[in-house]
């Protein structure tokens, strides 16, 4: 038997139907004698199927109007021939809101109402910490959940105040662990949680708001991260995640309830 020699690129070309019928038959014969190569090709074929399974749903989705409009010739569509981007729009709205709240704060200066200048900083820092650590598959935390007691003792000592870790199993999130981070003026803590599907949340605790009046929940969208943040007792808290706002609100409520109960 003389098995024809088959190159690596020919194996791929066989898979992709790029060979002449004669060569296809020869490669098929070769594969019968080379189970390793056959197994590898089978895996490449599952890649193709997995890619389709993952991304084909996009083909059936309704098109975003901002995109379908751009298929019209620009001359016929001069008014729309502008760059229209959601982030820019969002930034515009944020600026408007900022202007409005600055006006409101300006007004509030004459009221006994306390202003919480550091509070937006809390959500921003928490979101940045979330973005930095939550995608890390291997070292997302410094101390893992199997050493929870050690984690709590260490963070309590470093933050100078007793820290408690909420348990969010009822919300479908288990504790991964925690780490210490630099805050605006001292150490802060971050706890990380993970759902069965891999989705991660982080809870950011800062002692920098000690003595500040307590607040209700506030919501911020920092890039693609949703954040609920509030001040309660000795800490400022911020819960960050990629999950949608109502879902995050439910988890935030669970955190608040657990930490609020002495």
């Amino acid at each position, binding site marked *: 038997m003389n098995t024809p020699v088959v190159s690596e690129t020919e194996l791929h070309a066989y898979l992709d139907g*790029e060979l002449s019928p004669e060569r296809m038959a020869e490669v098929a014969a070769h594969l019968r004698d080379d189970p390793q190569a056959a197994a590898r090709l089978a895996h490449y074929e599952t890649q193709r199927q997995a890619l389709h*399974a*993952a991304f084909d749903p*996009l083909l059936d989705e309704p098109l975003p109007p901002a995109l379908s409009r751009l*298929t019209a010739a620009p001359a016929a569509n001069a008014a729309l021939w502008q760059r229209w*981007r959601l982030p820019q729009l969002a930034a515009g709205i944020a600026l408007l809101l900022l202007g409005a709240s600055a006006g409101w704060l300006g007004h509030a200066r004459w009221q006994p109402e306390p202003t919480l200048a550091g509070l937006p900083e809390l959500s921003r820092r928490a979101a940045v910490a979330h*973005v930095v650590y939550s995608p890390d598959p291997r070292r997302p935390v410094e101390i893992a959940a199997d050493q929870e007691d050690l984690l709590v003792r260490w963070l309590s000592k470093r933050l100078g105040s007793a820290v408690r870790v909420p348990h969010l199993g009822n919300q479908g999130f288990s504790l991964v662990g925690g780490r210490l981070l630099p805050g605006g003026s001292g150490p802060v803590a971050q706890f990380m949680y993970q759902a069965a599907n891999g989705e991660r949340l982080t809870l950011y605790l800062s002692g920098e708001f000690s003595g500040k009046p307590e607040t209700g929940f506030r919501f911020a969208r920092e890039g693609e991260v949703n954040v609920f943040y509030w001040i309660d007792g000795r800490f400022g808290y911020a819960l960050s995640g990629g999950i949608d706002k109502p879902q995050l609100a439910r988890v935030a409520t669970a955190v608040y309830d657990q930490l609020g109960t002495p």
Partner: protein
Amino acid sequence: MSQLDSQALLAELPRLRRYARALVGDRAGADDLVQDTLERAWANATQWRPGNALRPWLFGIMHNLRIDQYRSSVPPLYPLDDAAEVATRATQDDRLDVLALDAALARLPEEQRQVLLLVSLEEMSYGEVATTLGIPPGTVMSRLARGRERLRQLLDEPQPSPRLRVVK
């Protein structure tokens, strides 16, 4: 003047979005790339010859934009989380697959990811890929072989996190 046909463009849009999403790794970034592609297509409409296939031309524009983008910006910070949005009607298992695939794709060199996606997802012939990317067919084949093998290793790698698990 322009021979570009709006209806033909519209018909290509879903495939442009699918490819961009797989290539970029997040939904917003992908739609931005598609938007830029459409804008540049109209701006370069006179370069398109009606006899030519529209799809490779559009994918080629997207590819050039992607090079510009790559030169001027940092890759997205967390494609992993965003992947959850891709398939709204997907089941839990599908979602794991998408997350695992996204994570693995993100670790492929861009040049291998492009060729692999154009062949395996877009089902382009090697010749079409070569035209689209402006590279010789031999380069298409070697990048494809390297990309598929690297993806196989990445997906087979034991991962500590469930998001990187592959469902066989």
